[in-house]
């Protein structure tokens, strides 16, 4: 056995979070096919609804601009791909690692802290969502569904969406007791996907409470932000969406950390 090689320098918060990302990357290197499914879903929706159903629909107005239906649906699917990617890892996989793998117990025997775990896992969810979105953006570009140079900012926007959902979903997952509880995630995921002005404009909800609920819901903020960027009609509302998603992510991150403290450092 080698002699003591000296004590390594303490890890920085970024360096520490990177290590969990590295761990997940090694796991997925041999399971890259699992990566594909989450990307394909929004693409299939884009072709079937956006392009297919879109042939039956005339273009309509979005923030005073005429937008073809496919170009209306595409940014919503862009936001959805970030949402899907973030959700996959921060729910099922985190639950598995927390309850069955006891991965975080292993990690906490090292100099890493619960804060490092929270940052690392959320960053991983964020990356997965962002990779899906980047690929989707290329599909949109290839299909001529991008109308403005503002679309360059759609990528950071999807990173933000992935961050917000990754953090909040991981936080919610810390309260899950069994696999049955994940029905609730599916129960929330479907309506969010269908009714966040993804396939029809928010005006369809009328002027009542329902519309307010939709406008205040997280995926709607993401969808409308992406749509404003890819169609090039940026408004004050875009700023509101950005702030909304940043706050959501930061709150989620803080909650995850506190929950991991309560669950693991007993």
């Amino acid at each position, binding site marked *: 056995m080698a002699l*003591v*090689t000296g004590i*390594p320098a*303490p890890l920085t918060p970024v360096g520490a979070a990177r290590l969990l990302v590295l761990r997940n990357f090694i796991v997925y290197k041999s399971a890259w096919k699992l990566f594909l499914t989450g990307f394909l879903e929004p693409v299939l929706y884009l072709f079937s609804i956006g392009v297919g159903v879109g042939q039956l629909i005339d273009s309509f107005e979005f923030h005073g601009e005429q937008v073809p239906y496919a170009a209306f649906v595409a940014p919503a699917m862009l936001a959805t791909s970030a949402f899907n990617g973030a959700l996959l890892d921060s729910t099922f996989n985190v639950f598995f690692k927390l309850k069955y793998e006891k*991965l975080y117990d292993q990690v*906490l025997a*090292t*100099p890493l802290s619960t804060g490092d775990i929270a940052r690392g896992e959320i960053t991983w969810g964020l990356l997965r969502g962002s990779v899906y979105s980047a690929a989707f953006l290329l599909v949109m570009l290839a299909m001529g569904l991008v109308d403005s140079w503002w679309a360059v900012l759609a990528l950071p926007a999807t990173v933000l969406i992935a961050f917000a959902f990754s953090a909040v979903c991981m936080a919610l997952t810390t309260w899950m007791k069994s696999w049955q509880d994940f029905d609730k995630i599916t129960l929330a995921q479907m309506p969010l996907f269908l009714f966040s002005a993804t396939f029809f404009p928010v005006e369809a909800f009328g002027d009542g409470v329902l519309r307010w609920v939709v406008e205040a819901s997280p995926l709607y903020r993401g969808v409308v932000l992406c749509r404003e960027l890819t169609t090039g009609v940026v408004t004050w509302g875009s700023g509101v969406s950005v702030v909304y998603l940043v706050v959501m992510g930061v709150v989620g991150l803080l909650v995850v950390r506190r929950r991991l403290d309560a669950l*693991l450092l007993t």
Partner: protein
Amino acid sequence: MISARGLRKSFGDFEAVKGIDVEVLRGEAFGFLGPNGAGKSSTMRMIASVSPVTSGELRILGMDPATDGPAIRGRLGVCPQEDTLDNELNVFDNLYIYGRYFGIDRATCRERARELLEFAQITDKAKAKVEDLSGGMKRRLTIARSLINNPDVLLLDEPTTGLDPQARHVLWDQLFRLKQAGVTLVITTHYMDEAEQLCDRLVVMDKGLIAAEGSPRELIDAHSTREVAELRFGVGEHEALAAKVEDLGDRVEVLPDRLLVYSDRGEEVVTAVLERGLQPIATLVRRSTLEDVFLRLTGRSLAD
């Protein structure tokens, strides 16, 4: 290396550790002995700096776990009771990434991982999945992993529970080597032979308190006689017969399956028992062990 004063740990209303004083010295093998629920694992988790101290003082390598947790953990090796290996990674990557968690650079991690595979005698399994390893191999991998950072103190919680005798001996041999290399070992166990084999000094814990402290030899000298006569009678007869042999030794212990008569001259006890016309199914005279110390101190067998 480790010092605790009036150390306590509560979970709600339940007090798992009720105020213990412990001093572990550099280079020694120190044991926590006790039945399940004695507070051993709670104490170990506090030492591992993952469980906040409820009250009392705890210093590990001169540092306070409440404020220097990461720095302490950086110099500890932890081998938990269950093998918490990363099942999604192969054997080599388990060691590699664990080393990276300590902030050790890539090249050193790779080199250390290769050395430790050899140490654990699983070099040929480097690319295998963790779940394909045998129980003994998993245990050795867990111990190997806990050594990746060249720890000053190695914490072993029930290191050989669930292993077959051969695997246990391999493991004991490896722990001896580590001790010789200067690593301080802190071991919890409920196996007597393990404690006698491995520990220079140990404490017997019971119901959250320390019942006795010393080297295995000292404890046996202080709390038991030189020899023990074991008498096995028919099922259910032991309780009733205890009174008839009580005066033959310093003390009699009634176990479900046998009587233990404590005396410095065991053979004479057996002869006297036979002279009284009692007919045990089997008799055995042996030297006192830590198990006897434990019976004396806690009134129960360690097996439960």
